[in-house]
């Protein structure tokens, strides 16, 4: 059977996120309960989480999470890592047996810093260097897959229902100021763990619900800049779009959102001149990264979270505010499950990003 990445698999989904503006660290149990109520939006073929602020003991090290098919793959990959990084700490990621989750790969975690001479020789920035290594492992080392590579954050995912995945990884033993979750409903899948979501690159993580019709136009544009789509998923493409526009081209997240979910020309036409110029410029310059078709995403990054839906609002998304907390989910019930007293709940406008950051 072909693995995810060798074949493109469309899927429907549930997503959820919770964020503490004051940076209060919340245990992972909440987000599990939130995604759990949307059980019927997943089909047991993929679930996952991303948590931010979860590694306070190693905040400045790149935390790599890896799946290995077997110890040989592990040895090859560790050789690769040792030649490029100093490994400050590593070990198996702790898990618990959950009946519905089977056939797990070897799951390891490494805290890394690039070797200074290797970094200099590469003539890349630190971030370029790290992301290049992560993408190279996925592309070149058989049976090894980096699924998380940011600092002080981590992605946890598996084949299974999200609530089972969360318990499998013992997320209630971690605490973070920001959490996102994903339950997947793929139309067909080999159930490969690497294919579950969130998709992470450095500290960016994306959970996404939808099937974008612009996928191949976006993908082929991104490939020019070295983004190889090893999973052939929308989520991967969306993560790369954000990485390219925000990190490489220096656009703000608002500007990035205005490229991905650009307003229609009929709306642009009626805006004041400076706004009209702004949107026209973005569409002219970055038209190849316009995303069409249904999507709603929660983008996690160090210190913040962005919610974005497509420009026709073809996928549901609800946001809520309660005191210091911000919530987002595919359905309101997922918010009420963990904050029953919430009053301020709303649906963001089509194509309008909602951005929350640490105060």
């Amino acid at each position, binding site marked *: 059977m072909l693995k995810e990445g060798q074949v493109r698999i469309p899927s429907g989904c549930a997503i959820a996120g919770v964020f503490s503006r004051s940076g209060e660290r919340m245990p992972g149990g909440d987000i599990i309960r939130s995604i759990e109520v949307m059980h019927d939006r997943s089909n047991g073929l993929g679930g996952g989480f991303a948590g931010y602020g979860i590694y306070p003991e190693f905040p400045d090290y790149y935390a790599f999470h890896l799946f290995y098919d077997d110890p040989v793959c592990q040895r090859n990959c560790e050789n690769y890592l040792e030649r490029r990084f100093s490994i400050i700490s590593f070990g198996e990621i702790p898990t618990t047996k959950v009946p519905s989750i089977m056939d797990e790969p070897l799951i390891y975690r490494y805290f890394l810093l690039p070797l200074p001479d290797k970094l200099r020789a590469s003539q890349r920035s630190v971030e370029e260097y790290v992301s290049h290594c992560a993408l190279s492992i996925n592309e070149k080392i058989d049976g090894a897959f980096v699924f998380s590579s940011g600092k002080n954050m981590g992605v946890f995912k598996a084949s299974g229902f999200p609530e089972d995945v969360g318990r499998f990884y013992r997320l209630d033993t971690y605490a973070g100021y920001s959490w996102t979750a994903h339950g997947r409903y793929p139309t067909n899948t080999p159930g490969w763990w690497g294919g579950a979501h969130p998709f992470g690159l450095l500290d960016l993580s994306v959970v996404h619900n939808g099937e974008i019709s612009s996928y191949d136009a976006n993908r082929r544009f991104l490939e020019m800049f070295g983004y190889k789509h090893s999973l052939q998923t929308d989520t991967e493409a969306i993560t790369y779009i954000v990485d390219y526009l925000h990190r490489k081209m220096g*656009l703000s997240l608002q500007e990035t959102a205005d490229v991905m979910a650009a307003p229609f*020309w*009929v709306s642009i036409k009626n805006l004041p001149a400076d706004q009209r110029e702004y949107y026209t410029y973005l*569409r002219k310059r970055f038209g190849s990264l316009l995303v069409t*078709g249904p999507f709603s995403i929660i983008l996690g990054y160090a210190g913040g979270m962005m919610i974005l839906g497509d420009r026709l609002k073809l996928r549901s998304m609800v946001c809520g505010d309660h005191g210091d907390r911000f919530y987002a989910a595919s359905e309101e019930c997922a918010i009420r499950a963990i904050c029953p007293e919430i009053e301020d709940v709303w649906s963001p406008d089509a194509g309008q990003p909602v951005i929350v950051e640490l105060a």
Partner: protein
Amino acid sequence: MDLYVHPRFEVLRSEKKCICCRVCERQCANGAHGYDESAGTMESYDEKCVNCHRCVALCPTKALKIAETSHSFRQNANWSGHTIQELYLQANTGGVLLSSMGNPRPLPSYFDRILLNASQVTNPSIDPLREPMETRTFLGKKNQTVTRDTRGRLKDNMGAQLELRAPIMFSAMSLGSISYNAHASLANAARELGIFYNCGEGGLHKDFYKYGPNTIVQVASGRFGVHQPYLMAGAAVEIKMGQGAKPGIGGHLPGHKNMGQIAATRMTPEGSDAISPAPHHDIYSIEDLRQLVYSLKEATGNTKPIIVKIAAVHNVAAIASGVARSGADIIAIDGFRGGTGAAPTRIRDNVGIPIELALASVDQKLRDEGIRSDVSLVVGGSIRSSTDWVKAIALGADACYIATGALLALGCHLCRSCHTNLCNWGIATQRPDLVRRLNPEIGAEHLVNLIKAWQHELREIMGGMGINSVEALRGNRLMLRGVGMTREELDILGIKHAGL
């Protein structure tokens, strides 16, 4: 004595229906109809007929039809009757065979073997009657670094771009190869549609300067009619390096078409053949092209995008990659089916490659080299319908050029006799009595109708795919599948076979 060449067509007149009004006689500039005063009957001279349907369309009693002759040679799979007759013609005259319009041979069309996708269940289709369906397109370089003003706001540093309401344009046809009224029709239609027409290599008639904002002016190897005000008149300047119908040779305007205003606009003596040299004599290599591109940019104060038009030949991907590095803002590629006002038949029918393959390999090559954003790609060479257009965009084109299709909308019946100056439809002729037959207002209206119809179809197809803006269709090859293709053909096109 000349070798006998049998007429290709037979003029069939129903004696019962004909009322001898002599309309057909007056309408046929080829002189294929006559009137026998003494007998009071109409006569036909089959050998003069080119099958343009002018008489058929205008006969008040529908008494006429034209048939391909059934006269035949002895069956021979290798030597067709047509081939034998062409050989006789050459034995009689010692000349190169001349013809016009595009390659008519039954070579494979890849467009016809590509099928389109539509949404089902996992994502919704979009209803173009209820939701905006965007077709606006900008052509030009898109590789600038992001810059900001002192207040941190993004600056539009993209330079000259062509803005099209839909990604389609009328490609180059010179005044001379086609008539004043044909140009007027194209110019008017382009203005109304918010797109561009291309004046071709014969200069720009003074009456058409007012259409400048919707005009692309061309600079070809003959440099006919090129001067500073001409370069400044259009919205973009196109350097014509080649043409799909006749790669490797220049434009031909026979002397009998080069008269009056045509000759004046070209700045050539009346009645002289206006023959563009095969190469540009100042461009023998890519670095020379770069100099011309930059000279034109300088001459126009960097206000016009520069298009470089090349014919689709074997090595087109590498050539396009060179052109993309020469400073060009837009590359136009013309496939082997592209039309012409006059070309040596053998070249038209045997030189060049299909636009689908050329486009796919150029687009991929430029991406592999990371320079696809340095240029926009415009393709032509037989875009026959909205679906050819959609498929070209999904293969990677930013926009399409149409010419033969536009002439059909003006009434052309593809008789392939443009080089004779006897176009009975007033299009490819300079004879004033024939030119008058084309009413530019009606011509423009037909062109506008055609493009609007195609736009409707484009929107419908995009909506079916769940795409509501044409940028998201561009290069979106997942929307395409091939049928009946070999592995190699699929690889070149970068698409999967249907069923996968």
